[in-house]
């Protein structure tokens, strides 16, 4: 009754088993949540962005607009500001801060809004989870894509800074890896935060955290503007550390203190990753 036409039939093949090359993570995270294949998510994001490249490119312009407006417009209202090694032109002062702030903004946006939208509304991950991939693959894949994109934006911005003579030290070569570290730290914490969100209403709280950081972490004016107790508060916030780090690297006044900043972000990464990995399973598998 059935004449086997083998072309229609998917031929039997050896079972596909998850890759075991991914060592450490496979042992750290709870079993069943990770298949070591996060890179496919990056491939997917790349395919999607190829179709919507305009919106990817456009992300590069936002910090540039800020730089031109603040550096040149405001730069004529304020000639010099107290920088790491003495008074500097306003553009030199504000550019590294914008670099750090855009690394933060991009990472937080991707890690919270986009992640939440994809799993809650677009249901993008439902299908992914029916394959060998687990929630941790998704988290890593999305984080990696977020870093790749963020890294490109940062590199572009650093190039523009260089072109306008806003960089005065070879230390600035380290600004790009520093940006990636900052982005990773904010993405990890953002993702951890996203796992606690129930609805869009909660995203206002993200705004509530990010916006004051952007505005008050000595982005636009030096720390000395604040009264003493407020200075102490600001010095504990993450974007302050990122801005200090970038300012040090682009102006060349790098001391051992820079390691404090790096340590700060390393701690953020660890906390964010641990919390996110633990909670993501709960969130995605119901």
């Amino acid at each position, binding site marked *: 009754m059935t004449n086997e036409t083998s072309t229609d039939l998917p031929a039997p093949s050896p079972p596909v088993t998850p890759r075991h090359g991914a060592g450490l993570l496979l042992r750290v995270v709870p*079993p*069943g949540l990770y298949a070591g294949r996060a890179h*496919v998510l990056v491939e997917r994001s790349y395919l999607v962005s190829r179709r919507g490249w305009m919106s990817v490119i456009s992300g590069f312009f936002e910090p540039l607009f800020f730089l031109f407006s603040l550096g040149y417009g405001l730069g004529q209202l304020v000639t010099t500001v107290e920088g790491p090694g003495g008074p500097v032109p306003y553009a030199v002062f504000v550019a590294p801060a914008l670099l750090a702030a855009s690394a933060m903004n991009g990472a937080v946006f991707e890690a919270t809004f986009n992640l939440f939208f994809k799993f809650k509304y677009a249901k993008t991950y439902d*299908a992914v989870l029916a394959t060998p991939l687990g929630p941790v693959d998704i988290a890593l894949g999305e984080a990696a894509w977020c870093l790749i994109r963020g890294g490109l934006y940062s590199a572009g911005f650093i190039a523009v800074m260089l072109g306008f003579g806003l960089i005065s030290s070879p230390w600035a070569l380290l600004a790009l890896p520093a940006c990636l570290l900052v982005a990773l730290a904010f993405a990890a914490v953002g993702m951890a935060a996203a796992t606690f969100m129930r609805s869009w209403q909660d995203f206002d709280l993200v705004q509530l955290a990010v916006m004051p950081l952007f505005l008050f972490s000595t982005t636009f004016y030096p720390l000395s503007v604040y009264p003493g107790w407020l200075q102490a508060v600001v010095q504990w916030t993450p974007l302050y550390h990122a801005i200090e780090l970038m300012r040090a690297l682009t102006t060349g006044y790098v001391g051992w203190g820079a390691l404090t900043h790096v340590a700060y972000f390393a701690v953020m990464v660890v906390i964010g990753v641990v919390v996110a990995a633990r909670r993501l399973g709960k969130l995605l598998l*119901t």
Partner: protein
Amino acid sequence: MSDPAANVTNVTPTLVHAKGLTKHFGSFEAVRGIDVEVSKGEAFGFLGPNGAGKSSTMRMVSCVSPRTGGELRVLGMDPETDGPKIRARIGVVPQQDNLDTELTVRQNLQVYGRYFGLSRSAVRAKATELMEFAQLTERADAEVEPLSGGMKRRLTIARSLVNDPDLLLLDEPTTGLDPQARHLLWDRLFRLKQSGVTLIITTHYMDEAEQLCDRLVVMDGGRIAAEGSPSELIRRYSTKEVLELRFPPGEQSGDEVRDLAERVEVLPDRVLLYTADGDAALAAVHARGVRPVSSLVRRSTLEDVFLRLTGRTLVD
């Protein structure tokens, strides 16, 4: 000959083993302790009214939903610890299509194949083959979003075959398909089964269940109400024939014919009389002077079993 496992053992292995399996959503018990065994090469069906817990069960078997309690082994492994390994060998068609709307038809198949670790060249070939299968070749580079509901369904089904699964889980696969597409799919599923793929299907179409399933269970309220092959179930829970009577609206009660059959089922639009001899029952109805608008004698089907087990029968 290409399957070494078949040569080593002559006992058909159990692909899905569930014992006392439960699923709770908060305090709500969607699945309340079910026992299911599915053997290799079988086509196994879940029937049941809306909310019976079919999809919840399917999602646990496909290792995307952790069980609340009980035993569950799929392909001999525990979903809790070996989820990725199990999912690598199964294909899943969820009740709701969850295609990637940011990708094209072809990219949907290709990217999905990549999730299974297939090489780029392999997924390219596979995607072409599966688009043929789903009759979507002309739409290969189109967006997924504007496809018709049935096309999306076909794409979802095609996608589930990308990894050549040993076990295929289909949650209401033919909902939204036109009759041609349904028959085509039945044919493809039948062939997959011939080639050794195990099928688990939920459906609301009794003809589909009768056509495809070797064995099925009827679920109701999170429990299993009956289990067996379609013909067994019909034998056990229904009579040989059924007499269907239609009355003008508001004039049917079933009372006047209640004693003419083993069992009488009063539906909103007709009265069913379960009896070994439908023609004899019809003669008796006429002899009583009861005048239905129309009447029909037919053989019992799974639908009758379904009504018996999950409906609110007035006479038993």
